[in-house]
């Protein structure tokens, strides 16, 4: 067990810090929260900066256009960009964390060449078309159909929770290509251009008041068969590769951010006198231990992924994170909700102010035990896949 950084890692961190120190002050002011085209442009420009500086696709293998960095370097990158207050991955999220890694792992050479470079450069934005009205936790129940017509699929159905759909160029889409096969066997993974005829997007407003998700209606959309990644009807396996990324290192920056918020809560409580409330104060102390441990768990998972990392080959984007991500997500999603409940205690009646960033944080924290696998589903995963309890009931 070694928690110190190697010389190489220190040098990497130093170089990154220097670069962030130079580049961040030169960035324009971020766009308004509901200015989606503005946000796309802003996020894409930041991605281009990262690309030019050699930080795009840091942990992607070199043959996918990445930098082949170690998981620890990737962790350092996420930690330092968050600490420095760099822009979030934002609109590039699906491309960089879902679609890109999936194409890198499962795509043909032509597909990799077509789609990966624009993701890394920030030229093309992706969205995710997985969930459906009747396929949420039970993703394999998806019903969007893709019927073969010559060298095209004709796709019809409804997708839900498609983030950044309005500004995306591409959608990673799960469709049912064999309605007669067992549920998990008749699914395929397609890259669908968002400007194809028949695609209609309707923004979906969340309880937090924002509209970053959308419903997507597909009415006989023609998608070339060459846009299928992986074999026909093999989309479930391809998807599981993608989802396991979502449950991996995606939260590193957030844990760093939560620890910063925690410090700010303590200082705000001191300033407004609520620090004298021992119940609040001790609750913050407990959260301090909680988030410190979550950070250690992140380091543990990253080190484990590093150890398991294959020495080459296509699937090696930092090693596919395992079920340990479920343990992390279960505890983190709850701790995040507790953090923002503590923020409400610090604010008192001020917690009724919708314009306060901590109140917005409190509202959005509610989605953490739901999105990307509810806590109920995560507990099933931990119980069945890690503890070996029997399936069923």
């Amino acid at each position, binding site marked *: 067990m070694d928690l110190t950084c190697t010389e190489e890692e220190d040098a990497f961190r130093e170089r990154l810090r220097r670069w962030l120190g130079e580049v961040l002050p030169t960035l324009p002011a971020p766009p308004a929260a509901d200015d989606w085209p503005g946000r796309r442009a802003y996020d894409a420009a930041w991605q281009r900066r990262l690309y030019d500086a050699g930080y795009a696709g840091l942990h992607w293998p070199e043959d996918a256009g990445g930098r082949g960095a170690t998981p620890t370097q990737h962790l350092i990158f996420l930690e330092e960009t968050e600490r420095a207050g760099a822009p979030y991955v934002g609109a590039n999220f699906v491309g960089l964390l879902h679609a890109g890694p999936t194409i890198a792992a499962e795509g043909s050479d032509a597909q990799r060449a077509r789609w990966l470079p624009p993701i890394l450069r920030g030229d093309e934005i992706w969205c995710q078309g997985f*969930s459906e009205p*009747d396929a*949420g*936790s*039970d993703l394999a*129940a998806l019903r969007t159909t893709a019927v073969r017509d010559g060298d095209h699929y004709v796709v019809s159905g409804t997708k*839900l*929770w498609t983030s950044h759909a309005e500004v995306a160029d591409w959608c990673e889409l799960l469709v049912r290509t064999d309605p007669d096969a067992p549920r998990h066997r008749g699914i395929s993974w397609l890259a669908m251009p968002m400007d194809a005829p028949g695609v209609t997007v309707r923004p*979906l*407003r*969340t*309880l937090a*008041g924002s509209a970053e998700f959308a419903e997507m209606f597909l009415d006989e959309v023609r998608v070339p068969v060459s846009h299928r990644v992986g074999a026909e009807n093999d989309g479930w396996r391809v998807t599981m590769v993608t989802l396991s990324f979502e449950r991996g290192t995606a939260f590193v920056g957030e844990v760093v951010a939560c620890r910063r918020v925690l410090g700010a809560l303590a200082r705000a409580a001191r300033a*407004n006198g609520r620090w004298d*409330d021992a*119940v609040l104060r001790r609750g913050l102390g407990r959260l301090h231990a909680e988030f410190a441990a979550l950070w250690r768990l992140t380091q543990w998972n990253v080190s484990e992924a590093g150890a398991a990392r294959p020495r080459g080959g296509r699937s090696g984007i930092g090693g596919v994170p395992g079920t340990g991500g479920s343990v992390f997500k279960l505890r983190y999603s709850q701790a995040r909700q507790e953090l923002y409940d503590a923020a*409400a205690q610090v604010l*008192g*009646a*001020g*917690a*009724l*102010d*919708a*314009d306060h960033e901590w*109140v917005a944080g409190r*509202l959005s924290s*509610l*989605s953490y*035990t*739901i*999105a990307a696998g*509810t*806590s*109920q589903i995560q*507990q099933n995963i931990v119980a069945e896949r890690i503890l070996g309890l029997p399936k069923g*009931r």
Partner: protein
Amino acid sequence: MDFQLTEDQRALQGATRGLLAGRFGPDRLRAAVGDPAPDRALWRELGAAGFFALRLPEEAGGVGLGLPAAVFVFEEAGRALLPGPLVACQLLAGVVDGVASGEKIVGLCEGTRDPVLWEHPATCEELILVEKGTGCHDRAGRGAQGRTGGVYRSAADRVSCAPFASVDPLTPLARVTDLPRTEPLALDVPRLRREAALLTAAQQLGSAARTVELAVAHARRREQFGAPIGAFQAIKHLCAQMLVRTEIARCAVYAASVTDGDIDVTGAKLLADEAAVRNARDCVQVHGGMGFTWEAEVHLHLKRAWLRAECWCTAGEAEELLAADLIA
């Protein structure tokens, strides 16, 4: 002892539910999210139905019922998410002319909070400010001033306030920047606070009961993995605990309406706040992604529950009062 609703009480409950279902159904609720100002016509109708004059003596043109009746009505209002300064109008009927009939709408706010928040500022014609009291209600009072002083009445346009973005779409708020002390009102402050807490708790109870219904209905309808999700123990047990919280709060609130005791009301507020907030959260969880949308009713319950929990005795205040009672 017979701790069950009488037939009259059951009838009152049913009539109120019917009235609100007819005049403030799902469409009106959806419309209110965009424009939460109380509907003046509905307000007058509620006035005509005795909603605000419930506890006024019949001599004074009231219905002559007691606190339990008000609690049943407020439980229904909480269930229906009816917007407006309900507690203020209930408690000031008979004190401020025109409130009992629903002609006039007044606000009531606690000067002891930070910030001092005013519900429905654009709607209220007057604002009544309660200054006294360190926390919840205190029947003993602190001298004569504690019992009757510290309440001021002001015309709405005399109150200085700053905009405040309310987390609850159904309850616009303003921050009062300068406490107006225009016209003192001789009111029993501890009683006012106690009744405000109880009526707020009754709304929380109604909200808690409604979110159980919403969660159960969704769990029976929504299918995943080839079965209604309500067939899975994880969902079952969430719903069961929601009901337990509701029924515990119900007993506490109903009993406090009968005894009108400080400690009973304090405990009822604590348990009803917890039931409303935690049930709304669990209701979001049971609904999954659908509970996270603006269109779903459930976030309105959560946000209003948060708001009510900050009014008229917070959890921390309640726990301290209850603790003090243990060694009194």
